[in-house]
């Protein structure tokens, strides 16, 4: 508990305290500033979008890794972890190389909100794959066979038997993926170009507040993002309870 307080609670409290320095109206002013609002909207929107994509793609990739047999599966299994292993700024460079002005594949997405999404998708992909994969591996094959002999089609088996067992893992992965996405900095600064009102994300905005010496504003935005993250985690948890109880 002490460890947890030291690591998590005290810094969080400090942020909230700092953000309160300029009082409620100061707080509201900072948050409702147009440029800040745009950054928050972009970040939360893209993070939600990317998390949604990850829920589908991550589950699919985990499924393929566990259930299918194909050439190069072991390699794919290792490749999935690269976004985890890569220092984020290196990831940013890789993405800039691939999707920047001199894109070898002809996709010049630099300085667009697609760039933000791409960078977020890249760094958050492993979360759901890696939370779902072990659960899928542990699933009891008998259970699917029992359902099949009771007349359930493959789709019904997936929907009514497999998916409910995966939901806790999927939501845990989604929460991690969302939290990481709203905080991401390194991998997207290069590719996104940080254009105010268009590709500037919250973490960049917070940094510029700090560079301008306005710690209180930075803390205000940070505390709002904290609240967003909390709300999302709670909502995901509620959804998870609903879905896995329903059957």
């Amino acid at each position, binding site marked *: 508990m002490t460890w947890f307080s030291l690591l998590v609670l005290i810094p969080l409290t400090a942020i909230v305290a700092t953000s309160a320095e300029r009082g409620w109206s100061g707080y509201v002013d900072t948050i409702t500033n147009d440029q800040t609002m745009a950054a928050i909207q972009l970040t939360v929107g893209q993070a939600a979008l990317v998390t949604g994509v990850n829920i589908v793609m991550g589950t699919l990739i985990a499924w393929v890794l566990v259930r299918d047999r194909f050439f190069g599966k072991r390699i794919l299994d290792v490749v999935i972890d690269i976004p985890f292993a890569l220092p984020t700024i290196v990831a940013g460079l890789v993405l800039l190389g691939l999707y920047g002005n001199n894109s070898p594949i002809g996709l010049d997405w630099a300085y667009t909100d697609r760039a933000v999404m791409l960078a977020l998708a890249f760094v958050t992909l492993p979360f759901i794959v890696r939370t779902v994969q072990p659960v899928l591996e542990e699933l*009891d094959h*008998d*259970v699917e*066979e*029992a*359902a*099949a*002999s*009771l*007349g*359930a*089609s493959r789709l*019904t088996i997936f929907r*009514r*038997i497999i998916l*409910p*067992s995966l939901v806790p893992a999927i939501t845990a992965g989604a929460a991690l993926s969302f939290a990481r996405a709203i905080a991401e900095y390194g991998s997207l600064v290069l590719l996104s170009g940080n254009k105010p009102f268009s590709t500037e994300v919250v973490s960049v905005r917070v940094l510029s507040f700090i560079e301008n010496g306005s710690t209180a504003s930075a803390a205000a935005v940070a505390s709002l993002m904290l609240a967003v993250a909390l709300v999302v985690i709670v909502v995901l948890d509620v959804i998870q309870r609903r879905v*896995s*109880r329903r*059957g």
Partner: protein
Amino acid sequence: MSIEVTNVTKKYGDFHALDDVSVSLPTGQLTALLGPSGGGKSTLLRIIAGLDTADSGTVAIEGTNATKLPPQKRNVGFVFQHYAVFKHMTVAKNVAFGLEIRKTPKAEVKRRVGELLELVHLSQFADRLPSQLSGGQRQRMALARALAVEPTVLLLDEPFGALDAKVRKELREWLRRLHDEVHVTTVFVTHDQEEAMEVADEIVVINQGRVEQVGSPDELYDEPANDFVMGFLGEVTRLGPVRLRPHDVDVSVEPGRAGSFPGRITRLLRVGFEVRLQVELDPEVASGAEPVSVVLPRSHARGLDLELGSRVWLTAAVGAVTVPAMVAV
């Protein structure tokens, strides 16, 4: 015939899990597939259910050729050794699963589930999750779930194998009574000869991918087709040129009977109402042979005044089941 398996072969690599197996199981009976572990019992059961496919041969269920049908279309109830419960559903939901898939009206589902839970004595647990049940209760739930869809045949793979001895015994008696009530054609796999003898109308003995013998428990016990069946269905011992059951050895304390084997009692053990002897035969009649095991009622042993070291003469009892002993090594 309810289930007709014809010339089924199943190979894993070069290994024959089933080697040209044919059996027919009559409607309404309770049949046991009995044999040692690894003999191919589960493989055969899974092929009947469509969970595995045979390399060659056919399976017909109630006259319909089911060889190519997927498990969904076979209308077979399957019960697994480790219960295969749907963890996230309540007991009632588990049982209702097959009915809901068939789009049965809600009220009808409710009524059927109620009946089935009654049948397996789980009514008061309807709203629990499977994790809150004991092993025996989970298996009864799995049975109700399989019965819910009114299967043509009910297949059980070592259904009591994961339970402790006491519960296992209770459940096997209960299965017998349930079958007498429900009358669905039932096949269950077991490696426990006592379980098969106690519960089944008919036993199919399977060993190394082949059917060794098919018959009622009495037939198998009294007229084993070969050495393997004889050995698998009960204790056997060797007396001279034949193998027979220890309780089919007659003991006399005087010589005289034709073809009797003289020997000396080297062990004597009282177990409940019976006495178990080990008799070492004299070297001139059987040099180097294993001691003969003999079982006789306690009163009989007392009458003969048997003690450790007594000299006795052994013969095969009149009417004893014997098979020729395999060539001595």
